[in-house]
């Protein structure tokens, strides 16, 4: 679509575009160059602040931190999917006394900031009620409550967006409510929503970094720890760069997977040829779900 916003450039437009391109590159290079220059001037590229990367203990420490991050992500992702499934079913229920509370729970956890949720679970419950809650539990439960609520909305949107004919036909065949949901609606909804669900998992992975603020020993926590070690030359910037590369690579890979799923879904089309795939609606849904 974006290519139709302008004509094929003629000689003058080509010259102007080239000029704009050069100015743009110059600006970006100037900003990036200035940052790199400051890095160099303040000695962030000196060999002695990168020495730590050779120490086996440090490598093991970072590996352990990476595993802690992934562990929190895996547990939180599974729990969030379960939570989402249960509450989506609750919201779709025909009984007021089920759908009402389910809606309230989902809306509440979507409106409260995730960090406040984690603080409530960690500081609030342990100091207020005297129940000992580990940082891991607080982080995972917080991620589950927030992302589970978002996923519940995604599941529900997937089911609601299906053509009505699907459920009507299933009822006409004499299926029960549960059968209609599990055999007809859910398989189609899940397929349409799979890219969005994976995008939400990227959010879970990103938000495990919040564990840093409650001192869960994940990547950022260890980066801070290593960065404050005087005998390593306090290499907080070098360590932060490495940790950033790890985080961004992991998230990019997962995002690419979501992208691949989306392209595949789009290529194979929908189950119902009468309803043209509403790409923009799905894209908007995805944009929204990807928001932290």
């Amino acid at each position, binding site marked *: 679509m974006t290519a139709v916003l*302008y004509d094929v450039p003629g000689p003058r437009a080509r010259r102007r575009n080239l000029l704009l391109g050069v100015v743009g590159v110059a600006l970006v290079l100037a900003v990036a160059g200035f940052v790199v220059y400051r890095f160099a001037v303040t000695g962030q590229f000196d060999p002695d602040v990168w020495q730590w990367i050779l120490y086996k203990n440090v490598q093991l420490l970072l590996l352990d931190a990476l595993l802690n991050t992934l562990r929190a992500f895996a547990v939180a992702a599974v729990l969030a999917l379960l939570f989402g499934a249960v509450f989506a079913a609750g919201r779709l229920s025909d009984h007021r006394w089920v759908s009402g509370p389910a809606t309230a729970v989902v809306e509440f956890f979507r409106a409260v900031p995730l960090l406040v949720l984690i603080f409530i679970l960690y500081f*609030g419950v342990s*100091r*207020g009620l005297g129940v000992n809650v580990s940082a891991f539990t607080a982080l995972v439960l917080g991620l589950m409550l927030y992302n589970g609520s978002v996923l519940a909305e995604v599941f529900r949107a997937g089911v609601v967006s299906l053509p009505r004919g699907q459920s009507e036909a299933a009822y006409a065949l004499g299926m029960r409510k549960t059968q209609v949901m599990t055999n007809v609606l859910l398989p189609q909804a899940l397929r349409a929503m799979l890219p969005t669900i994976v995008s939400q998992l990227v959010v879970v992975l990103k938000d495990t970094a919040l564990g*840093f603020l409650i001192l869960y020993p994940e990547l*950022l926590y260890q980066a801070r720890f290593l*960065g404050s070690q005087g005998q390593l030359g306090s290499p907080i910037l070098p360590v932060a760069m490495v940790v950033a590369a790890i985080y961004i690579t992991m998230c990019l890979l997962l995002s690419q997977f979501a992208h691949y799923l989306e392209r595949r879904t789009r290529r194979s089309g929908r189950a119902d040829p009468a309803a043209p795939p509403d790409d923009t609606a799905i894209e908007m849904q995805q944009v*929204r779900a990807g928001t932290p």
Partner: protein
Amino acid sequence: MNVLLDNLGLYGSAFVGTVELFLIAAVGSIVGGMLLAAMRVSPVPVLRAFGAGYVNVVRNTPLTLVFFFFAFAYPRLEIADLSFFARACAALIIYTSAFVCEVVRSGVNTVPVGQAEASRALGFSFGQTLGSIILPQALRSVVPPLTSVEIALLKNTTIAAGFAVFEAGGIYQNLSERGYNVLVGLLWVALGFLILVIPLTLLQRNLEQRWSVAR
């Protein structure tokens, strides 16, 4: 109730801090996001590539990491001595701009192709097509998801508290120093955010219903 009433001043100034941070970062991110979106649909390939690269990287970076850089790493670079509030604003703007850009870009995609083609046939330039034809129409489908992005921004301001900006998320530390029940204190913070977020959510739903275009 006592926890709230005894510390009304604390809660008041903290939530004012939240709202200030939110407003500055919201305006900044909308401006930044619009610029990035204009880059992403522009006829200049280098700008398109830069916009796409920026959005891809930043969208896949944890906000905590951005804050980490600004809180601990930035002072080491000795560029300019900014207050923590300014650095928190910068972190939030850098992060949220990427999401705003995505929303605006997909909004541009919802405008029928014929509109752009017609304006080109009339001899409009890229700037005119975008500014007079596409963006005004895209606005209708952009505003509801844009509101969700800004709601997310409002909630994200709490991360600044973890890195010590004085705002609503940081109340618990003060309360625990004064010996109040932290759980109750934090529940009041959550309630405060509900009060801030719910009107925005209602506004967003309302806009979505009224402005959704049947195409």
